[in-house]
């Protein structure tokens, strides 16, 4: 009987969660175990952080935001749309230069100096932290002017990945979480860019004003701090403090 299988909690609540698209896969797993453990329900919406920002400012009923950056949560805090002092880094993204072709990238940036690709996909640096990081790397390696004419920009890291995985761009800077499976790059070839070449891609979570009195919202943020959530996040190629 279903009535007996629901966990016994004093009050189970629901929370709408706005999740950055790049965190889709880990968050689905985390929400599942969160619901099992607490009895609360997390209803997930996936999308661009900029789009969520506009929606939250116009009254969207989200209780928690898991952003793809740090600026958006802190901006919402200072504008009074989020609870001050509740933001924290839940994951730090890693950048990888990736190709679907097996032997194109030999675990270094050397391929960027060759003519072995016509197009390189990078996320729009104005919209996506992964794009900014990628341009940092090119700048540091002094390859920006060489590579620039071949760049195509995705509006977010998901579209950037699509450009590369469909083969329309031969290589691209994508999120490690997109190509990782069980700690290995699942297909093609890639170079995990050393963290010293770009600013850490910190993704912050924040409690939104409309989630202030929602027990499910605060419980979810607490759960994200826990070891079980951290293990899931790490297994998807993010770094956790």
């Amino acid at each position, binding site marked *: 009987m279903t009535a007996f299988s629901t966990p016994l909690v004093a009050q189970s609540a629901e929370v709408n969660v706005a999740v950055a698209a790049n965190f889709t896969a880990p968050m689905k797993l985390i929400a599942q175990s969160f619901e099992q453990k607490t009895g609360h329900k997390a209803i997930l919406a996936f999308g*661009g952080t*900029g*789009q969520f*920002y*506009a929606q939250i400012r116009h009254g969207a009923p989200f209780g928690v935001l898991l952003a793809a950056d740090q600026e958006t949560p802190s901006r919402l805090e200072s504008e009074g749309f989020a609870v001050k002092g509740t933001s924290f880094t839940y994951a730090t993204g890693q950048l990888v230069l990736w190709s679907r072709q097996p032997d194109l990238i030999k675990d270094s940036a050397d391929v960027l100096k060759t003519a072995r690709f*016509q*197009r390189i*996909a990078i996320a*729009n640096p*104005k*919209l996506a932290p992964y794009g900014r990081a990628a341009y940092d790397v090119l700048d540091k390696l002094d390859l920006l002017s060489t590579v620039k004419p071949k*760049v*195509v*920009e*995705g*509006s977010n890291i998901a*579209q950037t990945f*699509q*450009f590369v995985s*469909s*083969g*329309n*761009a031969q290589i691209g800077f994508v999120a490690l979480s997109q190509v990782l499976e069980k700690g290995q790059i699942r297909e093609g070839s890639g170079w995990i860019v050393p963290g010293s070449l770009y600013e850490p891609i910190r993704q912050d979570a924040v409690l939104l004003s409309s989630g202030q009195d929602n027990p499910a919202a605060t419980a979810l943020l607490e759960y994200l701090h826990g070891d079980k959530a951290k293990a899931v996040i790490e297994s998807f190629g993010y770094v956790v403090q």
Partner: protein
Amino acid sequence: MHDWPIGPEAWQAIGLTLQLAAMTTLTLLVIATPLAWWLSQTQSRWRAPIAALVTLPLVLPPTVLGFYILVLLGPQGWVGMLTEWLGIGLLSFSFGGLLTGSIIASLPFAVQPIQYAFEAIGKRPLEVAATLRARPLDAFFNVALPLARPGLLTATVLSFAHTVGEFGVVLMIGGNIPGQTRVVSTQIFGYVEAMEYTAAHWLAGAMVVFSFGVLISLSFLKKRSDRVMP
């Protein structure tokens, strides 16, 4: 000169959009006219499936179109293989790719008004032409085409406007290259995502005014054609 609320990148996008819309419209008139003529005359059993295929872009979400066009243009797609074999390389992320996508997405907006215009003419004028010993091609160019003028005008206006307003397809296959693939609709999307709302307002507002103007002018066209054709 005072400061414009939108930057040079927006003007570049506007220029590119108009260029894309003009070339799409011209190409479509060449493709759509014979296709519409065939659809309006044929008794073939292929008529229904071909008509459905032509209408498909009207009902499919642009992201579906954009996704399949991207796959089609890619190295594993038919079009991609063809263009690579021809030595052109891949069409994705280029003006040619946007043009291909826009032609497919706007095809029903060109074919349908022309087809209805041809159907509205009826058999009579062409039979009269035949009795005057006009050959079919003669009859088409000197009788059918002039009578279908309002339909051709509507097709021209709609194809142009629809290409200007197209978003999903150009976003999916564009790659956001300034001056090559970044058009007005994707520029607005970029402004909104980057939280540059003032610029977004100006460009989006201009789009609303433009589309309103197009629809108004269409209703004028229709009024005139009502006078010409009963």
